[in-house]
Protein backbone atom coordinates (compact mmCIF):
# COMPACT_ATOMS: atom_id res chain seq x y z
CA UNK A 1 0.00 0.00 0.00
CA UNK A 2 2.58 2.47 1.08
CA UNK A 3 4.77 1.21 -1.79
CA UNK A 4 2.15 2.22 -4.26
CA UNK A 5 1.93 5.64 -2.67
CA UNK A 6 5.70 5.93 -2.60
CA UNK A 7 5.76 5.39 -6.35
CA UNK A 8 3.61 8.48 -6.68
CA UNK A 9 4.97 10.61 -3.87
CA UNK A 10 8.69 10.28 -4.51
CA UNK A 11 10.88 12.06 -2.00
CA UNK A 12 11.94 14.46 -4.75
CA UNK A 13 8.31 15.45 -5.29
CA UNK A 14 7.67 16.03 -1.62
CA UNK A 15 10.87 18.07 -1.35
CA UNK A 16 9.87 20.35 -4.22
CA UNK A 17 6.38 20.61 -2.73
CA UNK A 18 7.72 21.76 0.63
CA UNK A 19 10.39 24.01 -0.88
CA UNK A 20 9.30 25.11 -4.33
CA UNK A 21 11.95 26.64 -6.57
CA UNK A 22 11.46 29.95 -8.39
CA UNK A 23 8.08 30.53 -6.74
CA UNK A 24 6.46 33.98 -6.70
CA UNK A 25 5.74 36.44 -9.49
CA UNK A 26 8.62 38.53 -10.83
CA UNK A 27 9.45 41.20 -13.39
CA UNK A 28 10.32 41.53 -16.20
CA UNK A 29 8.00 39.34 -18.28
CA UNK A 30 6.41 39.49 -21.70
CA UNK A 31 3.41 37.31 -20.97
CA UNK A 32 1.38 36.25 -17.98
CA UNK A 33 -1.19 33.47 -18.13
CA UNK A 34 -3.66 32.00 -15.71
CA UNK A 35 -4.46 28.31 -16.07
CA UNK A 36 -7.01 26.28 -14.15
CA UNK A 37 -7.66 22.59 -13.83
CA UNK A 38 -11.44 22.78 -14.08
CA UNK A 39 -11.85 19.36 -12.50
CA UNK A 40 -10.36 20.20 -9.13
CA UNK A 41 -9.82 23.94 -9.33
CA UNK A 42 -6.01 23.93 -9.10
CA UNK A 43 -4.73 27.25 -10.40
CA UNK A 44 -1.51 28.78 -11.58
CA UNK A 45 -0.57 32.28 -12.61
CA UNK A 46 2.65 32.13 -14.57
CA UNK A 47 4.98 34.66 -16.21
CA UNK A 48 7.62 34.07 -18.80
CA UNK A 49 10.54 36.30 -19.69
CA UNK A 50 12.23 35.32 -22.94
CA UNK A 51 15.34 37.15 -24.03
CA UNK A 52 17.15 36.53 -27.29
CA UNK A 53 15.69 33.08 -27.73
CA UNK A 54 16.49 32.06 -24.19
CA UNK A 55 14.06 31.47 -21.31
CA UNK A 56 15.48 34.01 -18.91
CA UNK A 57 12.89 33.62 -16.18
CA UNK A 58 9.71 31.76 -15.29
CA UNK A 59 7.90 32.94 -12.20
CA UNK A 60 4.58 31.73 -10.84
CA UNK A 61 1.98 31.73 -8.13
CA UNK A 62 0.34 28.31 -7.79
CA UNK A 63 -2.45 26.86 -5.69
CA UNK A 64 -2.75 23.12 -5.76
CA UNK A 65 -1.80 19.69 -4.63
CA UNK A 66 1.69 18.36 -4.02
CA UNK A 67 1.95 16.98 -7.53
CA UNK A 68 0.97 20.19 -9.28
CA UNK A 69 3.15 22.37 -7.04
CA UNK A 70 6.19 20.14 -7.28
CA UNK A 71 5.76 19.91 -11.01
CA UNK A 72 5.85 23.70 -11.34
CA UNK A 73 9.03 23.82 -9.29
CA UNK A 74 10.75 21.10 -11.33
CA UNK A 75 9.62 22.66 -14.58
CA UNK A 76 11.22 26.01 -13.76
CA UNK A 77 14.48 24.25 -12.89
CA UNK A 78 14.41 22.54 -16.26
CA UNK A 79 13.55 25.42 -18.55
CA UNK A 80 15.11 28.53 -17.03
CA UNK A 81 18.35 29.29 -18.81
CA UNK A 82 17.62 27.07 -21.81
CA UNK A 83 16.91 28.20 -25.31
CA UNK A 84 13.21 28.16 -26.11
CA UNK A 85 13.81 25.31 -28.54
CA UNK A 86 15.58 23.18 -25.96
CA UNK A 87 12.94 23.97 -23.37
CA UNK A 88 10.17 23.01 -25.77
CA UNK A 89 11.79 19.69 -26.45
CA UNK A 90 12.04 19.03 -22.71
CA UNK A 91 8.35 19.94 -22.49
CA UNK A 92 7.66 17.42 -25.23
CA UNK A 93 9.59 14.74 -23.40
CA UNK A 94 7.79 15.40 -20.13
CA UNK A 95 4.45 15.27 -21.93
CA UNK A 96 5.34 11.92 -23.46
CA UNK A 97 6.30 10.58 -20.07
CA UNK A 98 3.05 11.74 -18.49
CA UNK A 99 0.85 10.37 -21.24
CA UNK A 100 2.61 7.02 -21.34
CA UNK A 101 0.45 5.40 -18.64
CA UNK A 102 3.63 4.22 -16.94
CA UNK A 103 5.15 2.52 -19.97
CA UNK A 104 7.67 5.24 -20.86
CA UNK A 105 11.17 5.05 -19.37
CA UNK A 106 12.24 8.59 -18.41
CA UNK A 107 15.64 9.91 -19.44
CA UNK A 108 17.34 11.41 -16.39
CA UNK A 109 19.81 13.36 -18.52
CA UNK A 110 16.92 15.31 -20.01
CA UNK A 111 14.35 15.41 -17.27
CA UNK A 112 16.55 15.50 -14.16
CA UNK A 113 14.24 15.72 -11.10
CA UNK A 114 11.36 15.36 -13.56
CA UNK A 115 11.94 11.61 -13.65
CA UNK A 116 10.33 11.49 -10.23
CA UNK A 117 7.01 11.99 -12.04
CA UNK A 118 7.26 8.66 -13.84
CA UNK A 119 5.05 7.18 -11.13
CA UNK A 120 2.38 9.85 -11.63
CA UNK A 121 1.77 8.60 -15.16
CA UNK A 122 0.18 5.50 -13.62
CA UNK A 123 -2.47 7.62 -11.90
CA UNK A 124 -4.58 8.98 -14.75
CA UNK A 125 -6.44 11.38 -12.48
CA UNK A 126 -3.16 13.02 -11.43
CA UNK A 127 -1.61 13.51 -14.84
CA UNK A 128 -3.53 16.75 -15.24
CA UNK A 129 -2.06 17.99 -11.96
CA UNK A 130 1.47 17.33 -13.17
CA UNK A 131 0.84 19.01 -16.50
CA UNK A 132 -0.90 22.18 -15.33
CA UNK A 133 2.25 24.29 -14.96
CA UNK A 134 3.86 22.87 -18.08
CA UNK A 135 0.85 23.77 -20.19
CA UNK A 136 0.79 27.24 -18.67
CA UNK A 137 4.47 27.65 -19.44
CA UNK A 138 4.03 26.59 -23.05
CA UNK A 139 1.13 28.96 -23.50
CA UNK A 140 2.99 31.87 -21.89
CA UNK A 141 6.10 31.21 -23.92
CA UNK A 142 4.17 31.23 -27.17
CA UNK A 143 2.65 34.55 -26.15
CA UNK A 144 6.02 35.96 -25.14
CA UNK A 145 7.39 35.13 -28.56
CA UNK A 146 4.37 36.71 -30.21
CA UNK A 147 4.74 39.80 -28.03
CA UNK A 148 8.41 40.21 -28.94
CA UNK A 149 7.67 39.56 -32.63
CA UNK A 150 5.27 42.48 -32.69
Amino acid at each position, binding site marked *: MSQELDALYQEIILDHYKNPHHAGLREPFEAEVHH*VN*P*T*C*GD*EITLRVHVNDGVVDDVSYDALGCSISQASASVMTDLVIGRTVDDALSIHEEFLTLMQGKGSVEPDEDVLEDGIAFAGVAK*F*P*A*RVKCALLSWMAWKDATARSLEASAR
Partner: protein
Amino acid sequence: MIPGLLPELQVIRKDFPILERTLAGGQPLVYLDSANTSQKPQVVIDAMVDHLERHNANVARAMHQLGAESSEAFEAARDKVAAFLGAPERDEVIFTKNASEALNLVANTLAWAGPRQLREGDEIVITEMEHHSNIVPWQLVAQRSGATLRWFGLTDDGRLDLSRIDELITERTKVVSFTWVSNMLGTVNPVAELTRRAHAVGAIVVVDASQAAPQLPIDLAAMAPEERPDALVFTGHKVVGPTGIGVLWGSRALLEELPPFLGGGDMIETVAMERSTFAAIPHKFEAGTPPIVEAVGLGAAVDYLRSVGLDAVHEHERAITAYALEGLATVPGAKVLGPLDAAERGGAISFELAGVHPHDIAQVLDVRGVAVRAGHHCAKPAHARFGVQSSARMSSYLYTTPEEIDAFIEALHYTRSYFKVA
Protein backbone atom coordinates in the same frame (compact mmCIF):
# COMPACT_ATOMS: atom_id res chain seq x y z
CA MET B 1 -30.89 -15.93 -51.78
CA ILE B 2 -31.15 -12.23 -52.40
CA PRO B 3 -27.75 -10.73 -53.22
CA GLY B 4 -26.43 -8.14 -50.76
CA LEU B 5 -27.90 -9.65 -47.61
CA LEU B 6 -25.59 -9.95 -44.64
CA PRO B 7 -24.05 -13.42 -44.94
CA GLU B 8 -24.24 -14.03 -41.21
CA LEU B 9 -27.80 -12.77 -40.83
CA GLN B 10 -28.92 -15.59 -38.56
CA VAL B 11 -25.90 -15.07 -36.32
CA ILE B 12 -26.60 -11.35 -36.16
CA ARG B 13 -30.21 -11.98 -35.21
CA LYS B 14 -29.00 -14.07 -32.28
CA ASP B 15 -27.21 -10.97 -30.99
CA PHE B 16 -30.56 -9.23 -30.44
CA PRO B 17 -32.45 -10.85 -27.56
CA ILE B 18 -35.73 -9.10 -28.27
CA LEU B 19 -36.04 -10.80 -31.64
CA GLU B 20 -36.86 -14.03 -29.81
CA ARG B 21 -39.94 -12.47 -28.30
CA THR B 22 -43.41 -13.56 -29.06
CA LEU B 23 -46.35 -11.22 -28.86
CA ALA B 24 -50.03 -11.63 -28.03
CA GLY B 25 -51.43 -14.87 -29.43
CA GLY B 26 -47.95 -16.36 -29.67
CA GLN B 27 -47.10 -14.33 -32.78
CA PRO B 28 -43.38 -14.00 -33.39
CA LEU B 29 -42.15 -10.40 -33.51
CA VAL B 30 -41.55 -8.92 -36.95
CA TYR B 31 -39.98 -5.62 -36.04
CA LEU B 32 -40.18 -3.19 -38.94
CA ASP B 33 -39.95 0.07 -36.99
CA SER B 34 -36.18 0.52 -36.81
CA ALA B 35 -36.24 4.04 -38.23
CA ASN B 36 -38.21 4.91 -35.11
CA THR B 37 -35.82 3.13 -32.79
CA SER B 38 -33.46 0.21 -33.33
CA GLN B 39 -33.20 -2.92 -31.21
CA LYS B 40 -30.12 -3.50 -29.02
CA PRO B 41 -27.58 -6.28 -29.28
CA GLN B 42 -26.54 -8.19 -26.17
CA VAL B 43 -23.07 -6.63 -26.21
CA VAL B 44 -24.55 -3.16 -25.73
CA ILE B 45 -26.72 -4.32 -22.86
CA ASP B 46 -23.82 -6.22 -21.30
CA ALA B 47 -21.48 -3.24 -21.54
CA MET B 48 -24.03 -1.11 -19.70
CA VAL B 49 -24.64 -3.73 -17.04
CA ASP B 50 -20.92 -4.22 -16.48
CA HIS B 51 -20.48 -0.49 -16.08
CA LEU B 52 -23.35 -0.20 -13.59
CA GLU B 53 -22.34 -3.27 -11.60
CA ARG B 54 -18.58 -2.72 -11.50
CA HIS B 55 -17.40 0.71 -12.59
CA ASN B 56 -20.12 3.20 -11.78
CA ALA B 57 -18.88 6.60 -10.61
CA ASN B 58 -19.19 10.15 -11.77
CA VAL B 59 -16.69 11.26 -14.40
CA ALA B 60 -14.05 13.99 -14.57
CA ARG B 61 -14.71 15.17 -11.06
CA ALA B 62 -14.14 11.84 -9.30
CA MET B 63 -10.47 10.97 -8.94
CA HIS B 64 -10.67 7.69 -7.06
CA GLN B 65 -10.22 4.37 -8.83
CA LEU B 66 -13.87 3.94 -9.76
CA GLY B 67 -13.89 7.53 -10.95
CA ALA B 68 -10.84 6.90 -13.11
CA GLU B 69 -12.41 3.76 -14.58
CA SER B 70 -15.68 5.50 -15.28
CA SER B 71 -13.98 8.54 -16.82
CA GLU B 72 -11.84 6.30 -18.97
CA ALA B 73 -14.88 4.34 -20.18
CA PHE B 74 -16.74 7.56 -20.92
CA GLU B 75 -13.89 9.16 -22.84
CA ALA B 76 -13.19 5.89 -24.65
CA ALA B 77 -16.78 6.07 -25.88
CA ARG B 78 -15.99 9.49 -27.33
CA ASP B 79 -13.04 7.99 -29.15
CA LYS B 80 -15.24 5.24 -30.54
CA VAL B 81 -17.85 7.70 -31.78
CA ALA B 82 -15.11 9.85 -33.30
CA ALA B 83 -13.81 6.78 -35.14
CA PHE B 84 -17.36 5.87 -36.24
CA LEU B 85 -17.76 9.32 -37.84
CA GLY B 86 -14.18 9.64 -39.01
CA ALA B 87 -14.11 12.88 -37.03
CA PRO B 88 -11.04 15.01 -37.66
CA GLU B 89 -10.64 15.46 -33.88
CA ARG B 90 -12.09 13.46 -31.01
CA ASP B 91 -12.75 16.61 -28.99
CA GLU B 92 -15.19 17.69 -31.67
CA VAL B 93 -17.60 14.99 -30.46
CA ILE B 94 -20.16 16.35 -27.98
CA PHE B 95 -22.57 14.09 -26.15
CA THR B 96 -26.14 15.40 -25.94
CA LYS B 97 -29.33 13.70 -24.82
CA ASN B 98 -30.59 12.95 -28.32
CA ALA B 99 -30.40 14.29 -31.86
CA SER B 100 -33.07 16.86 -31.06
CA GLU B 101 -30.98 18.45 -28.32
CA ALA B 102 -27.98 18.53 -30.63
CA LEU B 103 -29.97 20.46 -33.25
CA ASN B 104 -31.38 22.80 -30.61
CA LEU B 105 -27.88 23.38 -29.27
CA VAL B 106 -26.66 24.64 -32.61
CA ALA B 107 -29.80 26.67 -33.34
CA ASN B 108 -29.89 28.34 -29.92
CA THR B 109 -26.23 29.19 -29.64
CA LEU B 110 -26.40 30.73 -33.11
CA ALA B 111 -29.07 33.07 -31.81
CA TRP B 112 -26.97 34.28 -28.87
CA ALA B 113 -24.20 36.88 -28.88
CA GLY B 114 -21.15 35.68 -30.76
CA PRO B 115 -19.39 36.06 -34.08
CA ARG B 116 -22.09 34.08 -35.90
CA GLN B 117 -25.13 35.58 -34.20
CA LEU B 118 -28.25 35.44 -36.37
CA ARG B 119 -29.94 38.78 -36.95
CA GLU B 120 -32.81 40.30 -38.84
CA GLY B 121 -32.16 39.97 -42.55
CA ASP B 122 -30.22 36.75 -42.14
CA GLU B 123 -31.67 33.61 -43.64
CA ILE B 124 -31.81 30.03 -42.47
CA VAL B 125 -32.54 27.41 -45.11
CA ILE B 126 -34.06 24.03 -44.32
CA THR B 127 -36.12 21.59 -46.39
CA GLU B 128 -39.69 20.45 -46.58
CA MET B 129 -38.64 16.87 -45.80
CA GLU B 130 -37.13 17.59 -42.39
CA HIS B 131 -38.05 15.81 -39.20
CA HIS B 132 -39.80 18.16 -36.75
CA SER B 133 -36.58 18.16 -34.72
CA ASN B 134 -34.86 19.96 -37.58
CA ILE B 135 -37.77 22.35 -38.14
CA VAL B 136 -39.10 23.56 -34.81
CA PRO B 137 -35.73 24.68 -33.35
CA TRP B 138 -35.17 26.86 -36.40
CA GLN B 139 -38.70 28.24 -36.30
CA LEU B 140 -38.24 29.20 -32.66
CA VAL B 141 -34.82 30.69 -33.25
CA ALA B 142 -35.96 32.57 -36.36
CA GLN B 143 -38.75 34.06 -34.28
CA ARG B 144 -36.40 35.11 -31.52
CA SER B 145 -33.59 36.41 -33.72
CA GLY B 146 -35.62 38.04 -36.49
CA ALA B 147 -33.94 35.84 -39.10
CA THR B 148 -36.05 34.40 -41.91
CA LEU B 149 -36.66 30.68 -42.38
CA ARG B 150 -36.67 29.46 -45.98
CA TRP B 151 -37.38 26.03 -47.38
CA PHE B 152 -36.23 23.78 -50.16
CA GLY B 153 -39.34 22.29 -51.75
CA LEU B 154 -39.71 18.70 -52.93
CA THR B 155 -40.20 17.19 -56.35
CA ASP B 156 -43.12 14.86 -56.97
CA ASP B 157 -40.90 11.83 -56.62
CA GLY B 158 -39.76 12.96 -53.18
CA ARG B 159 -36.38 14.56 -53.89
CA LEU B 160 -35.15 18.01 -52.97
CA ASP B 161 -36.14 20.48 -55.64
CA LEU B 162 -32.75 21.98 -56.40
CA SER B 163 -33.99 24.07 -59.31
CA ARG B 164 -34.38 27.10 -57.02
CA ILE B 165 -31.05 26.65 -55.27
CA ASP B 166 -29.68 29.98 -56.51
CA GLU B 167 -32.64 31.83 -55.06
CA LEU B 168 -32.45 29.95 -51.79
CA ILE B 169 -28.76 29.91 -51.02
CA THR B 170 -27.60 33.51 -51.25
CA GLU B 171 -25.39 36.02 -49.52
CA ARG B 172 -28.10 36.37 -46.88
CA THR B 173 -27.94 32.67 -46.00
CA LYS B 174 -26.21 32.04 -42.70
CA VAL B 175 -27.21 28.42 -42.05
CA VAL B 176 -28.28 25.54 -44.26
CA SER B 177 -29.63 22.60 -42.29
CA PHE B 178 -30.96 19.43 -43.85
CA THR B 179 -31.35 15.74 -43.34
CA TRP B 180 -28.93 13.36 -45.00
CA VAL B 181 -31.57 10.62 -45.30
CA SER B 182 -35.28 11.37 -44.94
CA ASN B 183 -37.04 9.40 -42.23
CA MET B 184 -40.28 9.54 -44.19
CA LEU B 185 -39.38 9.41 -47.88
CA GLY B 186 -36.10 7.55 -47.61
CA THR B 187 -34.51 10.10 -49.92
CA VAL B 188 -30.72 10.39 -49.69
CA ASN B 189 -29.73 14.04 -50.10
CA PRO B 190 -26.60 15.32 -51.86
CA VAL B 191 -24.58 16.40 -48.83
CA ALA B 192 -21.43 17.31 -50.73
CA GLU B 193 -23.16 19.47 -53.30
CA LEU B 194 -25.37 21.33 -50.84
CA THR B 195 -22.45 21.90 -48.51
CA ARG B 196 -20.27 23.25 -51.30
CA ARG B 197 -22.98 25.67 -52.34
CA ALA B 198 -23.60 26.82 -48.78
CA HIS B 199 -19.90 27.26 -48.06
CA ALA B 200 -19.51 29.30 -51.22
CA VAL B 201 -21.78 31.97 -49.71
CA GLY B 202 -20.17 31.71 -46.27
CA ALA B 203 -23.05 29.83 -44.63
CA ILE B 204 -22.53 27.01 -42.17
CA VAL B 205 -24.01 23.60 -42.82
CA VAL B 206 -25.77 21.41 -40.28
CA VAL B 207 -26.53 17.84 -41.31
CA ASP B 208 -29.12 15.73 -39.53
CA ALA B 209 -27.62 12.25 -39.83
CA SER B 210 -30.16 10.59 -37.54
CA GLN B 211 -31.22 8.24 -40.33
CA ALA B 212 -27.89 8.19 -42.15
CA ALA B 213 -25.63 7.16 -39.28
CA PRO B 214 -27.39 3.82 -38.78
CA GLN B 215 -26.97 2.73 -42.38
CA LEU B 216 -24.32 4.69 -44.30
CA PRO B 217 -20.57 4.67 -43.75
CA ILE B 218 -19.56 8.20 -42.67
CA ASP B 219 -16.01 9.53 -42.92
CA LEU B 220 -15.86 13.21 -42.15
CA ALA B 221 -12.08 13.47 -42.32
CA ALA B 222 -12.10 12.04 -45.82
CA MET B 223 -14.49 14.68 -47.12
CA ALA B 224 -13.07 17.62 -49.02
CA PRO B 225 -13.10 20.56 -46.58
CA GLU B 226 -15.46 22.58 -48.74
CA GLU B 227 -17.86 19.65 -48.85
CA ARG B 228 -17.61 18.76 -45.18
CA PRO B 229 -20.54 19.96 -43.06
CA ASP B 230 -19.76 22.18 -40.09
CA ALA B 231 -21.97 20.16 -37.80
CA LEU B 232 -23.59 16.75 -37.95
CA VAL B 233 -25.90 15.10 -35.46
CA PHE B 234 -27.25 11.65 -34.78
CA THR B 235 -29.00 9.81 -31.99
CA GLY B 236 -27.90 6.80 -29.93
CA HIS B 237 -31.08 4.78 -29.98
CA LYS B 238 -31.20 4.46 -33.76
CA VAL B 239 -27.67 3.01 -34.06
CA VAL B 240 -28.36 0.01 -31.78
CA GLY B 241 -27.36 2.13 -28.76
CA PRO B 242 -29.46 3.25 -25.79
CA THR B 243 -31.84 6.17 -25.42
CA GLY B 244 -30.68 9.17 -23.41
CA ILE B 245 -27.73 9.98 -25.63
CA GLY B 246 -27.17 11.79 -28.89
CA VAL B 247 -24.14 13.16 -30.65
CA LEU B 248 -23.22 16.55 -32.02
CA TRP B 249 -20.11 16.56 -34.09
CA GLY B 250 -18.96 20.09 -34.89
CA SER B 251 -15.79 21.38 -36.45
CA ARG B 252 -13.47 22.87 -33.86
CA ALA B 253 -13.71 26.20 -35.67
CA LEU B 254 -17.49 26.32 -35.33
CA LEU B 255 -17.66 24.96 -31.79
CA GLU B 256 -15.13 27.49 -30.58
CA GLU B 257 -17.12 30.34 -32.09
CA LEU B 258 -20.41 29.31 -30.53
CA PRO B 259 -21.18 30.50 -27.00
CA PRO B 260 -21.94 27.81 -24.42
CA PHE B 261 -25.44 26.29 -24.42
CA LEU B 262 -26.48 24.96 -21.02
CA GLY B 263 -24.65 26.18 -17.91
CA GLY B 264 -23.60 24.06 -14.99
CA GLY B 265 -21.12 21.64 -13.54
CA ASP B 266 -18.30 20.36 -15.79
CA MET B 267 -18.66 22.99 -18.54
CA ILE B 268 -16.82 25.69 -16.64
CA GLU B 269 -13.23 26.75 -16.31
CA THR B 270 -13.90 28.85 -13.24
CA VAL B 271 -17.01 30.22 -11.56
CA ALA B 272 -17.07 33.41 -9.53
CA MET B 273 -19.95 35.54 -8.39
CA GLU B 274 -19.04 38.24 -10.89
CA ARG B 275 -18.65 35.99 -13.88
CA SER B 276 -17.66 32.56 -15.07
CA THR B 277 -15.37 31.30 -17.79
CA PHE B 278 -15.85 28.14 -19.74
CA ALA B 279 -14.00 24.93 -20.43
CA ALA B 280 -12.61 23.99 -23.82
CA ILE B 281 -14.53 21.67 -26.15
CA PRO B 282 -15.98 19.10 -25.74
CA HIS B 283 -16.75 19.93 -22.10
CA LYS B 284 -17.91 23.47 -22.87
CA PHE B 285 -21.13 21.95 -24.25
CA GLU B 286 -21.61 19.18 -21.69
CA ALA B 287 -23.25 20.77 -18.66
CA GLY B 288 -23.92 18.61 -15.64
CA THR B 289 -23.36 14.91 -15.23
CA PRO B 290 -23.25 13.51 -18.76
CA PRO B 291 -25.01 10.35 -19.95
CA ILE B 292 -22.22 8.08 -18.69
CA VAL B 293 -23.64 4.60 -18.90
CA GLU B 294 -25.37 5.64 -22.11
CA ALA B 295 -22.03 6.66 -23.62
CA VAL B 296 -20.62 3.29 -22.64
CA GLY B 297 -23.57 1.64 -24.40
CA LEU B 298 -23.24 3.87 -27.45
CA GLY B 299 -19.53 3.12 -27.67
CA ALA B 300 -20.30 -0.61 -27.70
CA ALA B 301 -23.04 0.02 -30.27
CA VAL B 302 -20.91 1.85 -32.82
CA ASP B 303 -18.15 -0.70 -32.33
CA TYR B 304 -20.69 -3.43 -33.03
CA LEU B 305 -21.81 -1.71 -36.24
CA ARG B 306 -18.21 -1.20 -37.31
CA SER B 307 -17.42 -4.84 -36.66
CA VAL B 308 -20.30 -5.86 -38.93
CA GLY B 309 -19.12 -3.18 -41.33
CA LEU B 310 -21.16 -0.17 -42.37
CA ASP B 311 -20.72 -1.03 -46.02
CA ALA B 312 -22.21 -4.43 -45.39
CA VAL B 313 -25.05 -2.93 -43.34
CA HIS B 314 -25.74 -0.52 -46.15
CA GLU B 315 -25.80 -3.31 -48.73
CA HIS B 316 -28.15 -5.30 -46.56
CA GLU B 317 -30.53 -2.38 -46.11
CA ARG B 318 -30.52 -1.82 -49.82
CA ALA B 319 -31.27 -5.45 -50.59
CA ILE B 320 -34.09 -5.64 -48.05
CA THR B 321 -35.52 -2.32 -49.19
CA ALA B 322 -35.50 -3.42 -52.82
CA TYR B 323 -37.21 -6.65 -51.83
CA ALA B 324 -39.84 -4.74 -49.83
CA LEU B 325 -40.48 -2.33 -52.70
CA GLU B 326 -41.02 -5.28 -55.01
CA GLY B 327 -43.40 -6.80 -52.53
CA LEU B 328 -45.35 -3.57 -52.15
CA ALA B 329 -45.77 -3.43 -55.92
CA THR B 330 -47.81 -6.65 -55.68
CA VAL B 331 -50.29 -5.14 -53.23
CA PRO B 332 -53.17 -3.49 -55.07
CA GLY B 333 -53.75 0.07 -53.93
CA ALA B 334 -50.38 0.36 -52.18
CA LYS B 335 -48.62 3.61 -53.02
CA VAL B 336 -45.07 4.34 -51.90
CA LEU B 337 -44.14 7.92 -51.00
CA GLY B 338 -40.61 8.80 -52.07
CA PRO B 339 -38.09 7.42 -54.56
CA LEU B 340 -38.88 3.98 -55.93
CA ASP B 341 -35.31 2.92 -56.64
CA ALA B 342 -33.72 1.23 -53.61
CA ALA B 343 -30.26 2.22 -54.81
CA GLU B 344 -31.08 5.87 -54.16
CA ARG B 345 -32.80 5.70 -50.82
CA GLY B 346 -32.58 4.67 -47.23
CA GLY B 347 -34.44 1.84 -45.57
CA ALA B 348 -37.63 3.57 -44.42
CA ILE B 349 -40.61 3.11 -46.74
CA SER B 350 -43.74 5.17 -46.15
CA PHE B 351 -46.82 4.12 -48.04
CA GLU B 352 -50.55 4.40 -48.33
CA LEU B 353 -53.07 1.65 -48.94
CA ALA B 354 -56.18 2.80 -50.78
CA GLY B 355 -59.29 2.56 -48.60
CA VAL B 356 -57.54 1.80 -45.33
CA HIS B 357 -56.32 4.45 -42.94
CA PRO B 358 -52.64 4.04 -41.88
CA HIS B 359 -53.66 3.54 -38.27
CA ASP B 360 -55.88 0.70 -39.23
CA ILE B 361 -53.14 -0.85 -41.38
CA ALA B 362 -50.74 -0.70 -38.45
CA GLN B 363 -53.38 -2.22 -36.20
CA VAL B 364 -54.07 -5.21 -38.40
CA LEU B 365 -50.35 -5.76 -38.94
CA ASP B 366 -49.74 -5.56 -35.22
CA VAL B 367 -52.22 -8.33 -34.51
CA ARG B 368 -50.05 -10.44 -36.83
CA GLY B 369 -46.90 -9.43 -34.95
CA VAL B 370 -45.71 -7.01 -37.62
CA ALA B 371 -44.63 -3.72 -36.02
CA VAL B 372 -44.77 -0.72 -38.34
CA ARG B 373 -45.38 2.93 -37.64
CA ALA B 374 -48.43 4.95 -38.66
CA GLY B 375 -48.93 8.68 -38.50
CA HIS B 376 -46.92 11.65 -39.64
CA HIS B 377 -43.55 10.25 -38.49
CA CYS B 378 -42.67 13.72 -37.16
CA ALA B 379 -42.67 15.01 -40.73
CA LYS B 380 -45.92 16.91 -41.12
CA PRO B 381 -44.74 19.39 -43.74
CA ALA B 382 -43.59 16.53 -45.99
CA HIS B 383 -46.93 14.81 -45.57
CA ALA B 384 -48.71 18.06 -46.35
CA ARG B 385 -46.54 18.43 -49.46
CA PHE B 386 -47.89 15.14 -50.76
CA GLY B 387 -51.42 15.95 -49.73
CA VAL B 388 -51.63 13.15 -47.20
CA GLN B 389 -52.39 13.51 -43.55
CA SER B 390 -50.58 10.40 -42.49
CA SER B 391 -48.97 7.27 -43.81
CA ALA B 392 -47.80 3.85 -42.71
CA ARG B 393 -44.06 3.19 -42.60
CA MET B 394 -42.02 0.00 -42.56
CA SER B 395 -38.35 0.31 -41.77
CA SER B 396 -35.77 -2.43 -41.72
CA TYR B 397 -32.31 -2.79 -40.25
CA LEU B 398 -29.34 -5.13 -40.21
CA TYR B 399 -31.37 -7.84 -38.48
CA THR B 400 -34.28 -7.80 -40.94
CA THR B 401 -34.83 -10.95 -43.04
CA PRO B 402 -36.61 -11.40 -46.37
CA GLU B 403 -39.03 -13.72 -44.55
CA GLU B 404 -40.05 -10.81 -42.36
CA ILE B 405 -40.74 -8.77 -45.48
CA ASP B 406 -42.86 -11.66 -46.76
CA ALA B 407 -44.84 -11.64 -43.53
CA PHE B 408 -45.31 -7.89 -43.89
CA ILE B 409 -46.56 -8.09 -47.47
CA GLU B 410 -48.84 -10.97 -46.65
CA ALA B 411 -50.25 -8.98 -43.75
CA LEU B 412 -51.00 -6.12 -46.14
CA HIS B 413 -52.96 -8.45 -48.39
CA TYR B 414 -54.82 -9.64 -45.33
CA THR B 415 -55.51 -6.04 -44.32
CA ARG B 416 -57.16 -5.40 -47.65
CA SER B 417 -59.34 -8.42 -47.32
CA TYR B 418 -60.19 -7.65 -43.69
CA PHE B 419 -61.36 -4.16 -44.60
CA LYS B 420 -63.03 -5.53 -47.72
CA VAL B 421 -61.30 -3.16 -50.11
CA ALA B 422 -61.57 -4.82 -53.46
